[in-house]
């Protein structure tokens, strides 16, 4: 067998390997453009100012820590009742006279939060309802390997339960501890702003049941909404702003102790 024969053999082998590899590579490179091709030009340029962008305001000054929101959420969204799974919960902060901060949230606040520190030791105390912040730069959406979690056109971070592979990477990526692995569906679970309700013109369950209107839900782009009025009147803050996640949940009365 001469060198020519070898070369020919190798050439064939390489040609087919390269063709196969190149083909696969080209396909995966072109695939993302498919969406652009499908988009009508007008749809891309459409003015977004009139679209809905959901958000929430939380008024720490009015929250009484009754935990009704956390309870209603579990019922409404079929969240397992065990105390390890919460789409929303309420934290009780107690700053003691000695400067120490005690944070508690037994069973997410369901059943009402009770003060465990004697009155004489308390400097100040307040309640902080927590939920998914529906970040504009959501780290969970960035991290999901298959794109099962996404931001809806109206700004809500959702999980496609039929698509999630259950790798938990989004849970690791969420700085707020707002996600959990649902033991029943075995997919990542989180607050949806009660998407099934808000798309029908209803309020999220937690907002609906709050006796003191500590949660204000609305369209951030609607200047007449209660939420925009709340943002106008109050000095609001977001959680962990240094992480640049741009939450759409805004807090009034947020103290520096809140983590």
């Amino acid at each position, binding site marked *: *067998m001469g*060198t020519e*024969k*070898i*070369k020919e*053999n*190798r050439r064939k*082998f390489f040609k087919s390997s390269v063709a196969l*590899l190149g083909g696969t590579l080209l396909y995966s490179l072109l695939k*993302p453009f498919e969406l652009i091709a499908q988009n009508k030009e007008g749809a891309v340029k459409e003015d977004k100012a009139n679209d809905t962008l959901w958000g929430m305001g939380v008024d720490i000054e009015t929250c009484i820590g009754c935990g009704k929101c956390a309870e209603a959420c579990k019922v409404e969204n079929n969240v397992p009742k*065990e*105390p*390890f*799974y*919460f789409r929303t*919960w309420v*934290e009780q902060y107690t700053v003691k006279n000695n400067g120490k*901060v*005690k*944070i*508690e*949230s037994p*069973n*997410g606040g369901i059943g009402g939060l009770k003060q465990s520190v004697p009155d004489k030791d308390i400097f100040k105390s307040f309640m902080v309802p*927590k939920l998914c912040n529906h970040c504009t730069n959501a*780290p969970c*959406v*960035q*991290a*999901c*390997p*298959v*794109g*099962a979690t996404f931001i809806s056109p109206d700004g809500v971070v959702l999980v496609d339960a039929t*698509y*999630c*592979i*259950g*790798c*938990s*990477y989004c*849970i*690791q*990526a*969420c*700085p*707020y*501890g*707002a*996600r*959990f*692995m649902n*033991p*029943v569906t*075995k*997919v990542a679970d989180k607050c949806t702003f009660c998407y099934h309700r808000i798309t029908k013109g209803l309020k999220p369950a937690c907002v609906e049941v709050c006796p003191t209107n500590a949660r204000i839900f609305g369209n951030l782009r609607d200047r007449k909404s209660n939420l925009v009025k709340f943002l106008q009147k109050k000095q609001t803050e977001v959680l962990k702003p240094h*992480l640049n996640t741009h939450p759409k949940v805004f807090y009034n009365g947020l103290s520096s102790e809140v*983590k």
Partner: protein
Amino acid sequence: MEEHFQHLYQALSHVDGYIYPNEIDLHWGLMIVLYPYITGLVAGAFILASLERVFNVKVLKPTYGLALLTALAFLLVATLPLVSHLQHPLRSYEIFMTPNPTSAMAIFGFVYLWYLMVVLLLEIWFDYRLDFVIWSKKSTGFKKYFYKIITLGINDTDEKSAKLDDKLGYFITVLGIPSAFLLHGYVGFIFGSIKANPWWSSVLMPVIFLFSAMVSGIALVMVIYMVVSWVRKVKIEMPVLDTIARYLLYILIIDFTLESLDQVHRIYEAEESFDIIKVLVGGKLNITLIYMQVLLGTIIPLFTIGFFQVYKPSEKIRKTCYFLVGIMVLIGIFFMRWNVVIGGQLFSKSLSGFTSFNAVYSGLEGYFMAAVWLILPLLILAFLLWLMPPWKKVSFQG
């Protein structure tokens, strides 16, 4: 599920300080400790093989084939703990079908496939093709058919074809070094890019993962070389061991420096998360970090091999020490992965408290399963060594 809840109730009673209520469960357990560990062994073993080939370190020749087959055996298993950890393992192919381009994890499938199919399999194939042709004529039964098929019909045995194999193999090796760097540096990025977790979020993470991978891979090949030589009843060549150990020393120094730099940086900057990390290192990670990773896995091996560079005791003592050092390094790197993966989930992202890791023995996430994933590659390696023993290869280069 009831059992799982019981574990969580138990963990709930051990919560220290305040953690977000969803954080009681550790979402990444032993399987995710194994994933960077096994991938690291692959990258490290491959880089050792490449050293011999690309930088022409002739003394390491006896370990070249061994290192490549070790890398292959472990690479074949690398994804299994990952997939078994998924809550929906049957959907895992979606990572290939619709990868999210912004996800650090999504690209793993492609990096893995590139490494397995293009780098490792091709390199081994070019390295063995001639031997497959020759062996296919000499063998009988299963081996004969296997060799015949694996030659892919390219049956040339003359010197020119062997030279061509060698040239192409060399090219793949050169391509393989950055690929091995990519494979493991990338695994580090999966953790290092999580800004939510201050224990992980570090720009040094990919580099640290890479060097610790090299450390573990080199130690593994060193140990396997000794064990295989004992089993084959052939003499262990001391220059081989001394050279591998020297490389281990160099890389270990770099690795230790990088990890120390990372810690010094944390301590000096003392950011918001520092208080809780200080408690983590001094408490929950005390044994696995200070004793297992740093003392057993780094300091003792560093001093032992370092000492051998200035004073060489008898071969017998050196051999025993190298073997022990190899094992210690392997244990140390395992705990390095442990400290990253488990350690990063023990403290709350509220930076106000700790949960605890509940070790289980049975089940897909348990110790027994972990042992299976660590023993399986060794069985695969034994099979590969039986099927294509590097020491029986014909070499035109002499």
